[in-house]
């Protein structure tokens, strides 16, 4: 048994749980088109959760030698901790998932140099006015959870992250493109993204004003990710418990167009959050959040599930920062794992061809700064291609877009694309999203 659990029980705690997270990351970085850094990061730390006098205490530490001080401070924190009406996870059989790719684990990071060079070359061949930063980072993640009820579970996984940020400077404008892909193995297809950017460049440097009005809009998967910010409070069990989810009283009711189904699935190996169990030790599962437009479930962790009188959906996750990187120092919170959206029947080409006067929006700027709880989204069109008579004609400038996801997904859906893609959570409060393109009508655009 972990020495931390042992000490905690001796200090009068009724339950204790230790989660150890170790990460070994090696990274290759290109900056301004050139190779700049090779990095290696090792981190290992623990988080201790204890229950004393029915209250929760928490501490995290990467100083593993200082056991007494760690346990003492955790005990101090119980005096102010949550009233803990539930128990930690009982030991049970958990199905393992194969998320460790040996080839990737053993591949030296410098082997990615030719791929990074090719990625940059494809884009720079289209224009030399673009500056490209890109990185490949390979992580071996280890998670171990142990508690005083006898649970002892662990897994290892590999993760390859390809991140790019590009800046296109033309005359007096400077324009940025950002993208991140995460996979458990070496299947990141950064080259396809480079070819798409290269093909878009003539449009990106052609600035087009747009008139104000209600327009037909295509949100690409990366922009769909932005829209999810306006949706996530609604589907989060912890928000339902606190009464801030606008969907809190709508279980079983129709909230969206019947073509919309949304799942959360920790065990979906394509998503970067994939794991056999969550960071409290609850087995991962596939949870139907919305089925054919009807609200079915909220995501929950142990605490939220207890409040709602249901079983945890295995969404107690420890991650840190806006990029949702798993980290020992984070407390487990009720959070999304791999979110999978339903797809539709159109091709993206058909979608574009069907639009007479509209925009294909890749990203919305300033969105995160708004009050998104009620489903409202509003911001500048940071990256949007203007469509006239079924053809892309340039990049939209000086325009804002606004709407409400609950309204738009109920009343304004024309169709989803038949293909979808895993979107890296580069902007995200959520783990990973598998989303299609979406075609919506009557979306408000306001221009200068």
């Amino acid at each position, binding site marked *: 048994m972990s020495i931390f659990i042992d000490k905690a029980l001796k200090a009068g705690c009724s339950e204790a749980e230790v989660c150890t997270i170790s990460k070994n990351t090696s990274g290759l970085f290109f*900056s*301004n088109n*050139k*190779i*700049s*850094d*090779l*990095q*290696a*990061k*090792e*981190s*290992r*730390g623990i988080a201790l959760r204890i229950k004393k006098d029915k209250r929760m205490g*928490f*501490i*995290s*530490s*990467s*100083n593993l030698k200082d056991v007494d*001080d*760690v346990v003492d401070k*955790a005990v*101090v*924190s119980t005096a*102010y901790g949550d009233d803990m009406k539930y128990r930690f996870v009982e030991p049970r059989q958990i199905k393992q998932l194969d998320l460790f790719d040996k080839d990737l684990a053993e591949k030296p990071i*410098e082997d990615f140099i030719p791929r990074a060079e090719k990625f940059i070359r494809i884009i720079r061949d289209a224009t030399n006015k673009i*500056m490209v930063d890109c990185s490949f980072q390979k992580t071996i993640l280890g998670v171990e959870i142990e508690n005083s009820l006898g649970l002892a579970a662990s897994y290892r996984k590999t993760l390859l992250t390809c991140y790019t*940020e590009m*800046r296109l*400077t*033309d005359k*007096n*404008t*400077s*324009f940025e493109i950002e993208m991140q892909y995460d996979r458990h193995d070496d299947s990141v297809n950064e080259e396809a993204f480079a070819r798409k950017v290269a093909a878009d460049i003539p449009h990106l440097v052609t600035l087009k004003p747009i008139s104000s009005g209600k327009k037909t809009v295509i949100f690409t998967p990366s922009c769909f990710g932005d829209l999810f910010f306006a949706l996530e409070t609604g589907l989060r069990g912890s928000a339902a418990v*606190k009464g801030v989810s*606008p969907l809190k009283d709508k279980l079983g009711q129709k909230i969206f167009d019947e073509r919309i189904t949304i799942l959360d699935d920790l065990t979906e190996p394509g998503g970067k959050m994939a794991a056999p169990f969550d960071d409290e030790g609850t087995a991962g599962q596939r949870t139907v959040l919305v089925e054919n437009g009807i609200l079915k479930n909220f995501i929950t962790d142990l605490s939220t599930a207890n409040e709602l009188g249901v079983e945890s959906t295995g969404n107690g996750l420890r991650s840190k*920062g*806006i*990029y949702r*990187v798993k980290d020992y120092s984070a*407390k487990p919170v009720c959070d999304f794992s791999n979110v999978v959206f339903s797809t539709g029947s159109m091709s993206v080409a058909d979608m574009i061809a069907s639009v007479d006067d509209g925009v294909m929006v890749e990203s919305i*700027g*300033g969105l*995160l*700064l*708004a*009050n998104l*709880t*009620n489903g409202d989204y*509003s911001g*500048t069109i*940071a990256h949007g291609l203007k469509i006239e008579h079924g053809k892309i004609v340039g990049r939209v*400038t*000086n325009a*804002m877009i*606004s709407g409400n996801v609950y309204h738009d997904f109920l009343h304004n859906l024309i169709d989803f694309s038949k293909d979808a893609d895993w979107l890296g959570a580069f902007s995200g409060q959520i783990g990973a999203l598998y989303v299609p393109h979406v075609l919506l009508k009557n979306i408000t655009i*306001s221009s*200068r």
Partner: protein
Amino acid sequence: MKSYVQSLLQKYSSECDYVDVRLEDTKRLSIMVKGRNIDNLDYSFELGGCVRALYRGGWGFSSFNSLDDLEDHIIKTIKQARLIGKGTSRLAPSAVIEDHVKLDVARNPQEVPLERKLEILKGYNDLMLGSPGISTTSIRYFDSYTELTFANSEGTYIVQEKIDMGCGLTPIASKNGISQMRTVGAGSTYDFDAILGKEEAIKGACDLSVRLLDSPRPKSGNYTVICDRHLSGIFVHEAFGHTSEADKVSEDREFAAIMKIGKVVGQPILNIFDTGLDRGSRGSFVYDDEGVPSEKTYLIKEGVLCGRLHTRETAGIMGEKPTGNARALNYTFPPIPRMRNTSIDSGESTLDEMIKSTKEGIFACNSYGGQTGEQFTFTAGYGYMIRNGQLEELIRDFTISGGVFDTLGNIDMIANDRGPMDSAGGCGKGIQYPLPVAEWSASFRVNNVIVGGQ
């Protein structure tokens, strides 16, 4: 420790152009209060270090939690740099410094008993919850103590003892599914007592949150906008400060042409600087993460672009001087050019004069934050319509946006009100978030701004 680290750096310095080591030991307390309850109270201890090596323009970097294998990490990091270094190392020179910066504090937050901190927060919380119309509250508090050691192969060895503290007090008013909130912030690297005396500000925030519920949104369009000190700070940081960070401009000729020193970007009343010297501000420190002394760096003087924010490498590439802006979020990241306390300097007008001389416009106050790119966008916290020089109705939920240089060029009045403005927030750049910064900026008036309302 000192002689051990220095002997290792000495031993391997001939195998690369430059190598440095940072060691960090941090103890941190975080408290969150939501409504009547303490939502979160926890401690974290973090001990770690990193090594950075430069060889012919290529960087190696390693970070770790166990300090036992420092020599192995140095060897490995130099190997990384040698694997990719094929050009020229260009580090601007910096003085060799040996120093121990002792804690400079009036009252150290980590010596204030936990009970006292909770008593203060509870007092504020009771005040907010007792205000008419306030349905719930959110309070965020943290304090940390860090001992940071920096050593490089040139002989610099610096130990810095630092505290940091931040607090955000947010009353939330809700009605008919709409919520409105304002945050009263406090922060300091010098004095726990910066958190005291917030009662009047809290009363104002409570009153405003409730009144905002029934206030209209402005009509979208082009306006003359007066930005209050808070929004001014966010504007100068987000819209202009980030473009002054020299990592972009040092390699990108097209962008360098836009950011050319000597370019006239505003009227002569416009002065913008970034400083690490305001004692107590969360953007202040004595040495940056490359051991370069912090300073006050002018970016725009009398309307003319005159400087930028450098690391030793960006300064070396551009043939300029390091400015003490090389900052890393923590030991797991290499330093990059970052802001400290970025300000539009006080002008000669007053806020009152700016409002009185505006026929029609918006007084935009406070902000949820902002985002930059070719266009910047900020969501204002609230505002007032201005008609015929008078503040009129309260307005809510609007954004302001525009092109950075257009907007700087359209600033025609600046007030003489620069002063302390710290909060619990921080700056994000790539994955490195939240880095402590401050935004002590003066309020200003700008013409022709896009306002997004309804």
